């Protein structure tokens, strides 16, 4: 008996080496906690200290489906500059930006700044005119040699308007800090059909749209105007 109890006791002394095993599904709260902490580039210790929770408990919460009490959740949300409901994944069915705020200051972004913000690629919105009016659709994009590149299915609505004059918008807005930016690209789209241009894009751009399915067609927007705004709330 005594020997059996001694086993775990010695193991807990070698604390540094111990890591939580990562379960297959850590749950939504865990993912959101970890993702938000990574986004803010904070260490476990920093967040634990700010939220006044045990570092080990925080590490547990980031790896396992846990149920922290309301007070702990509130303190964690404050430490991560977000809200308890956001950590629990609430609000997913409502548009962003519903919090009323003081009037922020808008400033114009230069072309160079806009290009820097566009460069990582990601999610944007493509606007074009159809017979039934204006259409705006979310798209994954990459910036390649100063042009916006999208991938779409050959039979898609975007493909049908792949040679039109289009607008493209992307932004990043922080609801908590009421700050962010948006960049608007206006230009001429074309379906990439010429072999050498297509080969060049296939080689240089690693673009994988979120939706599953066929994305055989590359559409490229040659910008003729790029403008951007930043909003800051003091």
């Amino acid at each position: 008996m005594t020997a059996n109890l001694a086993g775990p006791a010695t193991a807990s002394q070698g604390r540094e080496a111990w890591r939580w095993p990562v379960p297959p599904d850590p749950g939504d709260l865990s993912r959101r906690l970890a993702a938000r902490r990574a986004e803010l580039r904070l260490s476990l210790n920093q967040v634990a200290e700010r939220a006044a929770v045990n570092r080990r408990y925080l590490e547990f919460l980031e790896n396992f489906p846990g149920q922290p009490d309301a007070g702990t959740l509130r303190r964690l949300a404050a430490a991560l500059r977000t809200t308890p409901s956001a950590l629990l994944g609430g609000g997913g069915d409502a548009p962003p930006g519903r919090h009323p705020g003081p009037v922020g200051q808008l400033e114009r972004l230069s072309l160079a700044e806009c290009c820097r913000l566009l460069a990582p690629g990601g999610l944007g919105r493509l606007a074009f005119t159809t017979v039934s009016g204006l259409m705006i659709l979310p798209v994954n994009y990459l910036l390649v040699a100063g042009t916006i590149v999208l991938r779409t299915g050959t039979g898609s609505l975007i493909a049908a308007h792949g040679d039109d004059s289009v607008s493209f918008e992307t932004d990043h807005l922080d609801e908590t800090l009421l700050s962010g930016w948006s960049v608007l690209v206006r230009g001429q789209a074309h379906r990439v059909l010429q072999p050498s241009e297509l080969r060049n894009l296939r080689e240089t751009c690693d673009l994988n749209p979120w939706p599953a399915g066929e994305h055989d067609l590359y559409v490229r927007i040659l910008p003729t105007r790029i403008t951007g705004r930043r909003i800051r709330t003091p």
Partner: protein
Amino acid sequence: MRALVVYESMYGNTHAVAIDIAAGLSATHEVTLVPVTRATPELVAAAGLLVVGAPTHLHGMSSAASRRSAAQTAGKPGSGLTMDPDADGPGMRGWLARIGAGQGFAAAFDTRLSGIPALTGRASRGISALLKRRGYRLLAAPESFLVSKQNTLLDGETARARSWGALLGEEARSEVAGAEL
């Protein structure tokens, strides 16, 4: 506003790109297009926007030796290359060393072999750095237009050059006007 497009070209590709950039700029600017050999200080002084381009030779701007070697390559029988009529001259590096201080807008481009920029090098970076040192305000990051190993512009580069010209023109105009929000 006046724009001046200055190019150095060996086999005509940078010349062709410069023509397309000038076409794009013409929507917003009165454009003058000249080879580097004929880009006089008067023309430079009169321009509010200076767009400068050259081919990439040995990872950067051309030198007397690299230009001589390019001319020899074109001179070989069956090379299929013809020298641009304005190919002979002091080259971009020499020209940039002589232009005085400016305070207008500027942007640089180059032509280079398609491939990873770290391997091919980009003349436009050197041009950009020199323009900045002269006091010019760079409107955009240096841009490269791609050429195949057979020394022809890749498909789509013509259209891209035209839109890049338009983009620069619009940006220069809104910078000058201090466009409202």
